[in-house]
C-alpha cells in the first residue's frame, strides 16, 4: 500500500524526478536534442540572440513585456502560485522543464531563450562567469526586502557576490534518515552509515559530491577537497563501506517507502516530504544532523542575458517574493525558502524535529559544494567512478 500511496501523491521530489527521468533525458540527449548545438566557442555563447548588447546591458524594468518563458524542475512550484500569476497579469506561462543541471546548462548554452531559470548555486556561479545571466536591479522588486537586508546569509552568498544576478529560492541540508524501530545504535555521526545493525539496508546518495563530501566530513577533511592524498583516503573509506550498503541511489523516497532502507543518507526536503505525505508511520522515522557537519546547498532564480521578456521576468520574481506566495511554496515544496516571510512557516513545519531546522543567518558555507577546475573535477570524479566500479 505504501507504494500506491506514493504514486498518488503529487509531491515534489525533484531529486527523485531527476533520477527517474534519466532514461528520457538520455534518450533526448542521444537523439541529439540540446546536445548537438551546445558546444560553440565560448564567445558565441555569451549572446546567442546576436541583438543583445554584451552582458552588462541596462537593467530591465519590472514591467510586463510579454509572456513568461519559464524553465525549471517539473512541479517545482506551488501550482496555484503559477496560475495566480497568469490570471493577475494576463500573460501566458510557456513552461519547459529540465531534469539535471548539466542538461539545463546545455539547453541554455545552445541558444534557447528563457525569461526565468532556477539553477543550483554552483550553476549560478558558472552562468555568471560565462556572462549568461543579467544583473537584477533590486530597486525594481517591491518585495526585495523579503530576501535581502535582514541579515540573511544570502545577502552575499558565495556563488553570486551581493546576489547581484540572482534571487535565492530554496535550500536543503544533507543528513541521515533512519528507522527507530529497526536501528537502536545510532551515534549522531556520519559513521552511522557503517552501522552493523543496518548492514545491507544502508543507502548512500548516488551523487559524487554527496558521497565524497560525507566521507570527507567523517575524516575531518574539506568537502571540496581535490588533494590527491585526501582523495585516496576518501576512496578507501568509501570502499570500506560497500559491505554495509544496499545501493547507491537518489531514489530516496521510494527506498524509504519500500522498506529497503533502514538508514539512508538523505536530503532534508525529501525527508520532510516523505514523512508528511508518503510514510505510513512518520513516527518511526528520524532525521540526524551529523555532528561532523552537514552539507548545505541552495538554488536561486536568474534571468538569462538573452531573455526575451526580462520585464515580465522581474514582475514574476517580485510576485514570488510576496509573503503569501512564499508560504504557499514552502508548504508545497517542503524546502525552506530563503526569505524572511517564510522562516516561521518552515519552523512550524519542522516543529519537534530540530535536526531539520535551518537558520538562514548562520549558514556555514564551508560545507557547500563548489565548482572546481576541470582537473580537480576529473580527480574527484575518478575517485567516485572507482568506488562505484569496484
Amino acid at each position, binding site marked *: 500500500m505504501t507504494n500506491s500511496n506514493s504514486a498518488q501523491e503529487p509531491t515534489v521530489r525533484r531529486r527523485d524526478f531527476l533520477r527517474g527521468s534519466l532514461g528520457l533525458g538520455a534518450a533526448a540527449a542521444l537523439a541529439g536534442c540540446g546536445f548537438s548545438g551546445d558546444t560553440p566557442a565560448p564567445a558565441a555563447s555569451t549572446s546567442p540572440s546576436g541583438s543583445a548588447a554584451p552582458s552588462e546591458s541596462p537593467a530591465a524594468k519590472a514591467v510586463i513585456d510579454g509572456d513568461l518563458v519559464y524553465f525549471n524542475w517539473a512541479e517545482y512550484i506551488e501550482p496555484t502560485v503559477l496560475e495566480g500569476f497568469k490570471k493577475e497579469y494576463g500573460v501566458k506561462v510557456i513552461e519547459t522543464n529540465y531534469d539535471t543541471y548539466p542538461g539545463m546548462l546545455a539547453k541554455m548554452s545552445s541558444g534557447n531563450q528563457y525569461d526565468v531559470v532556477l539553477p543550483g548555486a554552483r550553476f549560478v556561479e558558472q552562468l555568471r562567469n560565462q556572462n549568461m545571466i543579467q544583473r537584477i536591479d533590486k530597486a525594481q522588486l517591491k518585495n526585495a526586502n523579503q530576501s535581502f537586508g535582514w541579515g540573511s546569509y544570502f545577502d552575499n552568498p558565495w556563488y553570486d557576490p551581493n546576489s547581484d544576478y540572482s534571487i535565492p529560492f530554496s535550500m536543503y541540508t544533507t543528513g541521515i534518515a533512519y528507522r527507530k524501530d529497526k536501528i537502536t545504535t545510532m551515534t549522531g555521526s556520519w559513521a552511522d552509515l557503517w552501522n552493523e545493525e543496518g548492514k545491507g539496508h544502508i543507502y548512500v546518495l548516488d551523487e559524487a559530491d554527496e558521497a565524497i563530501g560525507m566521507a570527507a566530513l567523517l575524516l575531518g577533511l574539506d568537502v571540496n577537497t581535490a588533494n590527491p592524498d585526501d582523495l585516496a583516503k576518501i576512496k578507501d573509506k568509501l570502499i570500506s563501506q560497500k559491505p554495509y550498503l544496499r545501493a547507491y541511489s537518489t531514489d530516496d523516497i521510494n527506498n524509504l517507502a519500500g522498506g529497503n532502507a533502514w538508514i539512508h543518507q538523505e536530503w532534508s526536503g525529501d525527508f520532510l516530504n516523505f514523512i508528511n505525505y508518503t510514510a505510513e508511520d512518520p513516527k518511526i522515522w528520524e532525521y540526524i544532523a551529523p555532528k561532523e557537519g552537514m552539507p548545505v546547498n541552495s538554488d536561486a532564480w536568474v534571468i538569462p542575458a538573452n531573455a526575451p521578456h526580462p520585464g515580465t521576468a522581474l514582475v514574476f520574481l517580485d510576485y514570488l517574493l510576496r509573503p503569501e506566495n512564499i508560504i504557499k511554496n514552502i508548504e508545497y515544496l517542503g524546502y525552506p525558502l530563503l526569505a524572511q516571510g517564510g522562516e516561521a512557516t518552515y519552523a512550524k513545519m519542522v516543529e519537534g524535529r530540530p535536526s531539520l531546522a535551518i537558520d538562514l543567518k548562520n549558514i556555514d558555507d564551508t560545507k557547500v559544494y563548489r565548482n572546481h577546475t576541470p582537473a580537480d573535477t576529473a580527480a574527484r570524479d*575518478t575517485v567516485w567512478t572507482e568506488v562505484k566500479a569496484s
Partner: protein
Amino acid sequence: MSTDLQDAVAATLPGAKRQSATRTRLWGWLLLPPAAWMIVFFVSSILIVVALSFGTVNANGRPAFGTSLANYQALMNTTYLTVFIRSLVYSVTTVVLCMFIGYPVAYAIALHGGKYKNALIAALVIPFFASYLIRMYAWSTLLSDEGLVNQALHTVGFTDGVQFLNTPGAVVAGLVYGFVVFMILPIYASLERMDTALIEAGKDLYHSPLRTFFAVTVPATRAGVLGGVLLVFLPALGDFVSAQLLGGPSTFMIGNLIQQQFFESQNQPLGSALTVVLMLALLVFMVFYLRATQRQNRET
C-alpha cells in the same frame, strides 16, 4: 529478421535491370527523406560524439572540441576494464537466459498457437508499449523488501522475506525482462516461415522428437536465433536503467558510467570517449553476426 531484409533486397536485385529508368529514379527520390533523416539525426550525432571524444572541458564545465587524447588515456584504467567485463558477463547471461525463455515461447506460439497465434504475439508485445523505465520502476516496487512479492511470501511462511533487489541477479532479471521480446520475435518469425513438413519428414525417418528438433528445427531457425542474440545483446550491453533501478553497490555497468559522465560529471568528452569505445566493441560483435549470417546464406 535480417534474412527477411536480405531476401527483400535480393528479390529486387535480379529485377533491377529490367526496371525502367523512371522507376529506379522514383526509388531514389523516395529514399531521400529517410536518408536525410538518418544523416541529420543519426550520422551527425555519431560524428559529434566521435569529435567530442577528443575534446576538453572548460573551466565552466562546458565541453569544447579539441584534438586531445586525454580522454582515451583516462580510459587506460583497470576500473573501466572491471566495469566492461562486468557488463559483458551480465549481457551474455541475459542473452543465454533470453534464449532459454524465448525459444520455447516462440516455438509454442508458432507451432501450437493455431488461430490464437496473432493474439498471443500481441499479448507478448503490448506490455512492451509501456516505457522500459516505468516497467523497471514497477519491478523495483514489486520486489522491494516490503513489496507485494515479499508480502505474499510472508503469508506463506517465509517470515524473513527474501532480498531480491539490489543484487546482480536483479540486474540480469531486469535485462532479461526488458529485452526478451527481441529474442522471441525473430525466432517466432523464422519458425513461422519454416516448412513444418520438414519436422514430419524428420519423424518419418525415425528421428526422436528431440533429435528432429536439433537436426531440423534448430538449423532452420538459426538466422532467427542469431538475430535475437544480437537484438538482445546490443541493448543489454549498453543498458544503464536496470543497474540504476535494480542494482546494488557493486553492479555498475558501462552504460551507467557513460550516463554518469554526461548527466552528473559534466564531462561530455570523457562520456563520448567511452561511447566510442563501446560502439567499437559492439561493432566487433556486429561484424561477427554479419559473417555468421552470410555463412548461413551461402549454405542454404
